[in-house]
């Protein structure tokens, strides 16, 4: 940490939010907060353990890079935070919480007064209690009812109707009618019913929004928003760090091993391997030398490369994918949630019913006042209390169950869409596979050779060396003393181990001339005078991929694999998993294929991780991504699953189907309740006591039914 001047008096401070990993306990919180607080220039640091975020107030002289380094100095990983629409959602959740508190307070107090009325309070006391109830209920309805009123207004203005419309009409009419009753000294006021209804419905909404916020926070914590910078080499030989957005064609940039290439370009000097898996879906590292093209977003693996920028910013291949994603037409956003579909039938039905009861009683000779009372009683009884809770509660409970199993669901509509899926498209690299290479054939099985390979392979961080080192260690390899060990950029490793010269690297460099299929990923080794051998590597499928795909087929789903990788690599994988597959698919090809399926009426689940899957993930009916996905993949997906297994995909679909079964049961319960209560209301038999009992009884019933989903994931 470079020394910074302490904060000067009156200096304007800045606030920065970072996402931090690895914070679990009180000691971690104390370590970060005290450690950062001791750094000059930082005036306050506060960890939020629920959201894994760190809020730092600091002098403007400290930048993002210094802050990240300071946190890393304390032994934690930090990364800049990807701004999402957090602010609006947090504010909405807070408003719902306050509305819920007000409605809860009012419901309890009005119920207290109502109980005294039901137990037989006399004329003057009843009038007093009605007025007190009105005094509490009117401000409550105005404050706590706002989320529903604004939702209903927004829908009506666009000529649509949703669940908020019958709720708003019911609550407002009930309140007005009760006020009239109170003013005229009537016997029945339904303030308790109106406020209790708001309380139950707000509880459902609040839980729904809290669940979404939790999933979103967990996903944001996975995102790695690497500050896009590039080391530019000026013509005079000096080098400067500049933001990637400032790059233009013609500049020379230096990309160190392990860094992301900032722009499309041509290699000027250097030889290395690049990892293109996130951009094109190719699993094997691709060797590049001077004169060859490299793509922005790919990772330079082995040795530094000097790259002459040919296209930067909006002209790169990545930007093309981004544009395709923006234009991808979204089936998701057009999806109408089941509750709103139900209310399209429900709202007109109950409103007609209430109007007919009113007219019927009027024609039957009842007075206007009595007919209006009965009409409003029908509205209260049919107010979709259970219906409004039936869906969000089921979603909240099953999302919680999924989250405990490492599946983060972004919102409730994702569960509904997941339950309707009939086709699953899987990406290969990083989705069906782990995106890491492992030796397939040719590993020596004797401990002596394994030890030599292990010693050699430990000399590099190249993915192939790591794979060899891990495999050799499993075969019993141990580190041997080496006289020297060097890494030849772009070629491999060379060393003298136990007195023998040996090499591990490109097949041709180690002396394995032919006999290696060009399209397979292979690495050669030679030890002393012994003939050189070759080891082929492949991207390992997730450990339970076969099982998971069989499970998907048993669920009656059509499974296909789409990959940007070579035909040979894809055919190998498809054969071992037993699925149909297509190779060499560009991002646009995947998107187009998916649209064709949708045009045929299929509901498609896209599972992918890379940038190249972005447009397809966005356009699919529902999308899943592994936790290791690129930012683009994780943001476009509806469900993000953590861990090495592929099983979460069928499990999530099964859980979604179970959830929708419970939602349908809840609808049936709500309709059954109406079938009993509505005739009573039409006959004029419903008193405020019956309305309150029916409303809370049916709500408890649907909540209890939804709680069965706690074990939905199995």
């Amino acid at each position: 940490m470079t020394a910074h001047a302490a904060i000067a008096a009156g200096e304007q401070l800045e606030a920065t939010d970072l996402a931090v990993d690895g914070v679990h306990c009180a000691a971690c919180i104390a370590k970060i907060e005290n450690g950062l607080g001791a750094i000059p220039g930082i005036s306050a640091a506060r960890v939020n353990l629920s959201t894994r975020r760190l809020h730092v107030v600091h002098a403007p002289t400290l930048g993002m890079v210094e802050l990240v380094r300071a946190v890393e100095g304390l032994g934690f990983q930090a990364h800049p935070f990807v701004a999402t629409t957090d602010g609006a959602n947090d504010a909405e959740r807070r408003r719902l919480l306050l509305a819920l508190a007000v409605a809860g307070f009012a419901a309890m107090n009005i119920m207290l007064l109502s109980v005294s009325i039901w137990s037989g309070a006399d004329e003057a006391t009843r009038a007093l209690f009605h007025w007190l109830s009105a005094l509490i209920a009117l401000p409550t309805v105005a404050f706590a009812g706002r989320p529903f009123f604004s939702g209903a207004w927004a829908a009506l203005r666009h000529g649509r109707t949703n669940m908020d419309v019958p709720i708003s009409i019911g609550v407002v009419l009930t309140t007005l009618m009760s006020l009239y009753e109170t003013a005229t000294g009537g016997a029945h006021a339904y303030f308790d019913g109106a406020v209790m209804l708001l309380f139950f419905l707000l509880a459902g909404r609040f839980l729904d929004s809290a669940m979404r916020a939790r999933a979103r926070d967990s996903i944001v914590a996975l995102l790695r928003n690497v500050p896009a910078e590039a080391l530019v080499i000026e013509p005079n030989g000096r080098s400067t760090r500049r933001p990637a957005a400032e790059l233009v064609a013609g500049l020379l940039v230096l990309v160190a091993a392990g860094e992301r290439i900032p722009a499309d370009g041509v290699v000027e000097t250097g030889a290395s391997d690049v990892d293109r898996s996130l951009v094109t879906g190719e699993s094997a590292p691709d060797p590049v030398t001077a004169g060859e093209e490299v793509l922005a977003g790919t990772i330079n693996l082995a040795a530094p490369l000097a790259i002459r920028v040919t296209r930067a910013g909006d002209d790169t291949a990545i930007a093309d994918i981004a544009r395709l994603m923006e234009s991808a037409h979204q089936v998701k956003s057009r999806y109408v949630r089941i509750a709103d579909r139900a209310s399209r039938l429900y709202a007109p039905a109950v409103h007609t019913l209430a109007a007919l009861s009113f007219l019927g009683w009027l024609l039957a000779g009842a007075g206007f006042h009595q007919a209006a009372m009965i009409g409003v009683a029908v509205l209260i009884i049919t107010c979709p209390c259970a219906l409004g809770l039936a869906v969000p509660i089921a979603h909240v409970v099953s999302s919680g169950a999924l989250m405990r199993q490492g599946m983060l669901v972004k919102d409730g509509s994702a569960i509904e869409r997941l339950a309707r899926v009939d086709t699953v498209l899987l990406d290969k690299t990083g989705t069906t596979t782990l995106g890491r290479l492992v030796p397939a054939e040719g590993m020596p099985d004797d401990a002596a050779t394994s030890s030599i390979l292990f010693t050699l392979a430990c000399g590099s961080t190249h993915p192939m060396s790591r794979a060899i080192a891990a495999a050799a260690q499993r075969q019993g390899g141990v580190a041997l003393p080496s006289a020297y060990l060097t890494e030849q950029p772009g070629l491999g490793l060379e060393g003298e181990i136990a007195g023998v010269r040996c090499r591990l690297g490109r097949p041709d460099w180690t002396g394995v001339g032919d006999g290696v299929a060009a399209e397979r990923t292979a690495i050669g080794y030679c030890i002393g005078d012994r003939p050189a051998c070759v080891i082929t590597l492949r991207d390992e499928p997730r450990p339970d991929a076969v099982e998971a795909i069989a499970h998907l087929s048993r669920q009656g789903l059509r499974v296909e694999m789409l990959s940007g990788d070579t035909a040979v690599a894809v055919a190998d994988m498809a054969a071992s998993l037993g699925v149909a597959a297509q190779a060499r698919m560009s991002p646009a090809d995947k998107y187009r294929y998916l649209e064709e399926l949708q045009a045929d009426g299929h509901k498609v689940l896209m599972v992918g991780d890379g940038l190249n899957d972005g447009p397809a993930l966005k356009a699919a009916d529902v999308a899943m991504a592994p936790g290791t996905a690129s930012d683009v993949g994780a943001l476009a997906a509806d469900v993000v699953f953590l861990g090495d297994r592929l099983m979460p995909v069928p499990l999530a679909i099964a859980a979604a189907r179970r959830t929708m079964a419970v939602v349908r049961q809840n609808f049936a319960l709500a309709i059954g309740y109406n079938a009993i209560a509505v005739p009573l209301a039409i006959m004029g038999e419903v008193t405020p006591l019956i309305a309150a009992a029916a409303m809370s009884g049916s709500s408890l019933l649907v909540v209890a039914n939804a709680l069965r989903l706690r074990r939905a994931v199995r």
Partner: protein
Amino acid sequence: MNGVLVLIPIALGLGLAGLAAFFWAVRDGQFEDLDGASMRILIEDDRDG
């Protein structure tokens, strides 16, 4: 009846006080980090004293 006239305002007042306290707690951000709050109690912050 006279008892009710005294007791009801008291009951409502107490309820409102609780509601006001809840509003204050939400505005104050006390519900922003529920996991952290349970951990912070274990931090020993007696270095100054």
